[in-house]
């Protein structure tokens, strides 16, 4: 059913020559990021094309979450640059939406008010918020308080909120790591679905290799000890993807090998 996948893992330098990027929607170049004495990130260059879904994996402590925070503008203490779109300097919620590991819903606002938070104060549960809640399967919970939601539902609401401002790029920091396996699968399918429907560009930080391959057009492996991006794996599989697909499994092995190689270096 699936066309035979072209599996490829190339060193970054080669990649740059092979693909002269047209004009990336998001370009992150971190020369150095330190926490005190310790250098976390060094010489990372990541360009993401419009509509692309990039999964960022790496051993824990390699700085992948830090890289995402830099991209989101939450961490400004680094040397390098982040460009979004035409290089407009002030990045706002219309450029970038963020989904964190925790839902981070405001507990005193209803679910719909949380989604419409960007609309102003008091946030009115407008048509767009309700449509987004419907899209993530939370139409019935619009008036509920966050404490009444399950972990998975709360994360759905967080995704709806991130999409409310119609950002061009959605950054996700291990968004499904705190939910059970079954809920995680449903949320992964949901994310693939809304990303396609909204044509939003995704940068997904994850430690789940299967998730990285399932959702990404490309899996980027970040090395430890500030070595930058050590490997990239293209995922040229058609969507919607099937978890039991043999090609997917082969790519997962490839990413794992790349991770091991990065660790062994």
């Amino acid at each position: 059913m699936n066309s035979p996948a072209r599996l490829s893992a190339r060193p970054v330098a080669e990649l740059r020559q092979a693909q002269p990027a047209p004009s990336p929607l998001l370009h992150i170049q971190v020369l150095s990021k330190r926490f005190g004495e310790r250098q976390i990130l060094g010489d990372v260059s990541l360009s993401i094309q419009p509509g692309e879904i990039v999964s960022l994996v790496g051993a824990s402590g390699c700085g992948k979450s830090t890289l995402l925070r830099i991209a989101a503008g939450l961490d400004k203490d680094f040397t390098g640059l982040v460009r979004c779109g035409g290089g407009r300097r002030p990045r706002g919620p219309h450029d970038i939406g963020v989904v964190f590991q925790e839902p981070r819903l405001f507990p005193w606002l209803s679910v719909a008010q949380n989604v419409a938070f960007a609309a102003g104060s008091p946030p009115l549960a407008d048509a767009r918020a309700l449509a987004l809640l419907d899209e993530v399967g939370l139409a019935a919970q619009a008036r509920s308080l966050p404490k009444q939601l399950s972990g998975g539902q709360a994360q759905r609401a967080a995704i709806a909120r991130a999409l409310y401002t119609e950002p061009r790029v959605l950054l996700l920091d291990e968004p499904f790591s705190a939910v059970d396996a079954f809920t995680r699968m449903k949320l992964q399918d949901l994310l693939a679905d809304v990303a396609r429907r909204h044509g939003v560009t995704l940068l997904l930080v994850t430690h789940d290799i299967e998730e990285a391959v399932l959702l990404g057009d490309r899996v980027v492996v970040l090395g430890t000890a500030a070595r930058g991006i050590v490997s990239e794996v293209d995922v040229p599989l058609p969507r919607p993807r099937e978890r039991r697909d043999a090609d997917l499994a082969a790519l997962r092995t490839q990413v794992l090998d790349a991770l091991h190689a990065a660790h062994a270096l």
Partner: protein
Amino acid sequence: MAAEPQALAAVPVAPLRPTLARLPRRGLGLLLPALLLAGIEIAVRAGWVNGHLLPAPSDVLQALLGLGSADVAGHVLASSLRVALGFVGGALLALAVGTLVGLSRTAEALLDPSFQALRAIPSLAWVPLLLLWLGIDEAPKITLIAIGAFFPVYMGTLSGIRDVDRKLVELARLYGLSGATLARRVLLPAAAPAVLNGLRNGLSLAWMFMVAAELIAATRGLGYLLTDGRELGRADLVFAAILLLATLGKVSDSLMRRWEEHALAWRDSLGSTP
């Protein structure tokens, strides 16, 4: 053996509990005062204690009625109005200052030590100073009550803002919120549990400071009634004033508590309903 399930079913659903536990919880708090009052009444009527020093509850009630409803209402209204004005003034100032100090380390370093020192001053110590500065009208009384209300609200606001989840603040910053907007939309709502607790403590302290204010120079109010009773040697009047103070304090605290429960319904804690 076969008859046993039937025998079990015949047992009433409500188990045999002590009568006390079956009373409505709400009314349970009245039990102790009622017993105490009845005991005093009996002791005085039996001549075991001197009714001039510890008046019988019926005499206290009679003293209240003897004052006339217009008079009692006048005292209650005068005191309540002072408490209301002082409390609102002190609480609003404390909210503003507490937010500022909570947000800025510089403001904290500058202001907090002084506030902690001022907080330690007993209410009565302020009285002579306020009388010298502000005369004997309403101004010193309301100012004293405001001082009493200020510190609990200040402490509550400060600790509430300090304890706001950093992750929520970070999210708000993603939406470009900062300064006053951040305080209004995120910090104060998140700090609301501590703030409301501070407001409740502030209100009860406002009542206490009100008595201190009225003991000195007043022609109306419950503090005045206390002084009057002492000067006339009328313990029944003193008890009548104490009774009114207790009632007013309890009623205002209950109202505050109801507001608190309503405003904090979003909390996911043991005390809140799911």
